[in-house]
């Protein structure tokens, strides 16, 4: 053994306290501390996660699966080993007003022999069998790592099955090793775009929009649809929350696209702009400011009908008046509390920083899995000095930052929840598994309520770290 190769495992066997852990050298450039007077730095984002860093990101397949999952009258079949299908079975809180087909888990369950001899025959048989039984309006076939490696011709199988069954059978090229989650979003957009333009656009109002990147978590799409209906604007398709294949086929008849989850759906919006001349705008439905801005954006676009703007103003006024007094009550209790945010997309993080400011709370740590350079630039601009901005973080780093900043609340997803609870910190779920609608004006109130319930819970006084608050720091 070469003596110059020091052994990091034996060098010091004592595990350092969480807040003393050093960042991995490969990760240092992806963490920025905002300091006043210094221009925003560009984070090298979009690069693959560092091996062994225990990233919170998932793979390409995950990106495609979560985006297309809410299309509820389509058959979603995972072509690959059983694990990929089992772990994505019904994992989103997207609800449907009709068919529930999307909540099932279908897979070709590739075995050793299929890997050796190819899985095309199995895929074709599985598709024919499932389509005959469930009579879906379309079928999405997700390719996983293995399928990419053994080189099954999924496109040819889809073509054959499509011709036999008469429904669109769409391959989604989401091999897990292909890139990051963003490449999965792109693959999903490509697949869904094959449907666009095949439907009849007759009868679509001149004041019509598509909502892109909204997934009907806990029924949020229905809240938004109601707002636009009250404004006098027709929603042609919501892609993909509570959507039907029929809506997606005719969505090119709309006059404007509003993109919420910009990370996943900007690609589709750009394709719609290129081929059908539909302009798109980035909006967010979280928080009073962003929600109102999103509604006004659409009203301004349809300026040929001044009654739309009038109705929008009335709607915003009514809705804010209904929630404002209660929001103020929560604000009194929440003012000055510190928050750490780690979510999937950075655009959502931006909205959250604004919403928290409205509640009088400070953002101390903010990060995302898939943000781009522009998102991080904006985050650096709007956040307070001293804020830690991080791309593609991992559990140890998040715990370290939470301890360092002594936050009172963590906003994240299911993988971050136990980190927060172990540290004795309140938690608010803002990911795709949540059961509470957080979009719209009513969502703002739900959010304040949830944050208040967690932050002000008396349970934290029993957490060891909290009990010693103000005294010397102790390891949780």
């Amino acid at each position: 053994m070469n003596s110059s190769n020091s052994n990091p495992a034996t060098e010091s066997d004592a595990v350092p306290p969480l807040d003393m852990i050093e960042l991995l050298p490969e990760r240092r450039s992806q963490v920025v501390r905002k300091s006043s007077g210094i221009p925003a730095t560009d984070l090298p984002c979009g690069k693959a996660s560092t091996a062994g860093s225990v990233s919170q990101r998932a793979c390409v397949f995950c990106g495609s699966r979560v985006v297309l999952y809410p299309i509820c009258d389509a058959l979603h079949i995972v072509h690959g080993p059983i694990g990929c299908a089992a772990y994505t079975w019904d994992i989103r809180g997207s609800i449907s007003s009709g068919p529930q087909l999307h909540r099932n888990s279908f897979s070709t369950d590739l075995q050793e022999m299929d890997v050796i001899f190819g899985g095309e025959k199995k895929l074709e048989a599985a598709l024919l069998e499932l389509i005959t039984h469930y009579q879906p309006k379309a079928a999405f076939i997700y390719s996983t790592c293995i399928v990419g490696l053994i080189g099954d011709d999924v496109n040819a199988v889809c073509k054959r099955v499509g011709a036999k069954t008469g429904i669109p059978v769409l391959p989604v090229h989401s091999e897990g090793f292909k890139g990051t989650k963003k490449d999965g979003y792109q693959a999903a957009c490509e697949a869904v775009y094959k449907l666009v333009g095949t439907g009849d656009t007759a009868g679509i109002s001149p004041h019509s929009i598509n909502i892109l990147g909204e997934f009907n978590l806990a029924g949020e799409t229905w809240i938004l649809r109601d707002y636009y209906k009250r404004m006098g604007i027709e929603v042609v398709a919501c892609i993909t929350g509570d959507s039907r294949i029929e809506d997606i086929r005719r969505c090119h008849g709309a006059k404007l696209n509003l993109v919420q989850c910009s990370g996943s759906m900007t690609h589709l919006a750009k394709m719609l702009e290129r081929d059908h001349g539909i302009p798109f705008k980035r909006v967010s439905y979280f928080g009073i400011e962003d929600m109102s801005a999103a509604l006004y954006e659409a009203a301004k676009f349809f300026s040929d009908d001044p009654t739309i703007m009038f109705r929008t103003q009335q709607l915003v006024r009514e809705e804010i008046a209904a929630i404002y007094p209660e929001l103020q009550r929560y604000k009194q209790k929440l003012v000055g509390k510190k928050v750490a945010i780690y979510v999937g997309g950075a655009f959502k993080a931006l909205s959250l920083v604004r919403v928290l400011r409205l509640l009088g709370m400070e953002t101390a740590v903010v990060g995302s899995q898939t943000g781009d350079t522009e998102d991080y630039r904006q985050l650096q601009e709007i956040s307070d000095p001293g804020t830690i901005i991080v791309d593609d973080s991992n559990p140890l780093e998040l715990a370290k930052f939470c301890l360092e900043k002594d936050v009172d609340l963590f906003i994240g997803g299911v993988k971050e929840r136990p980190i927060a609870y172990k540290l004795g910190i309140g938690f608010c779920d803002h990911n795709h598994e949540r059961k509470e609608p957080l979009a719209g004006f009513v969502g703002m109130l739900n959010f304040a309520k949830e944050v208040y319930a967690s932050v002000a819970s008396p349970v934290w006084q029993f957490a060891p770290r909290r009990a010693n608050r103000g005294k010397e720091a102790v390891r949780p």
Partner: protein
Amino acid sequence: MSIITQEEEPRSKNFTSTRNACKLCTPLGACLVFRGVEGCIPFLHGSQGCSTYIRRYLISHFREPMDIASSNFHEESAIFGGSSNFQQGTLNVMRQYQPQLIGAATTCLAETIGEDMPRLLHDLREKYGDRVTAHRDRVHREAIAARTWTASTPP
């Protein structure tokens, strides 16, 4: 969890596809076992998704933090082999977690491209001593499923 939308077909028929199968993949079993050992960090040799999904699944089940490292294959690693990812990944785990044991398990990706796990482990031992344990998954054989099957079949 399952939503059965229509009457299921008679059970006697042989299906090609799985429908709402209560069956998980091999690396999950490996991670579960490794995680039970004190000071052990499970390490999956394959795409990032495998480790993140298994983490998500186990976190939801146990409501406990569950850190599983990954060698994070890219397209190049799938073509040219993932030995450098394995080296870097294990080194990073040692740096961050100071584990007493790293439990390395292969995923279908690593097995299909034919990663030479004994050699990778040999190289690692040369460098850092005997702290890495390997669990060589037999591709696509579900350890957990096999066990449930045995339990449910009458003797």
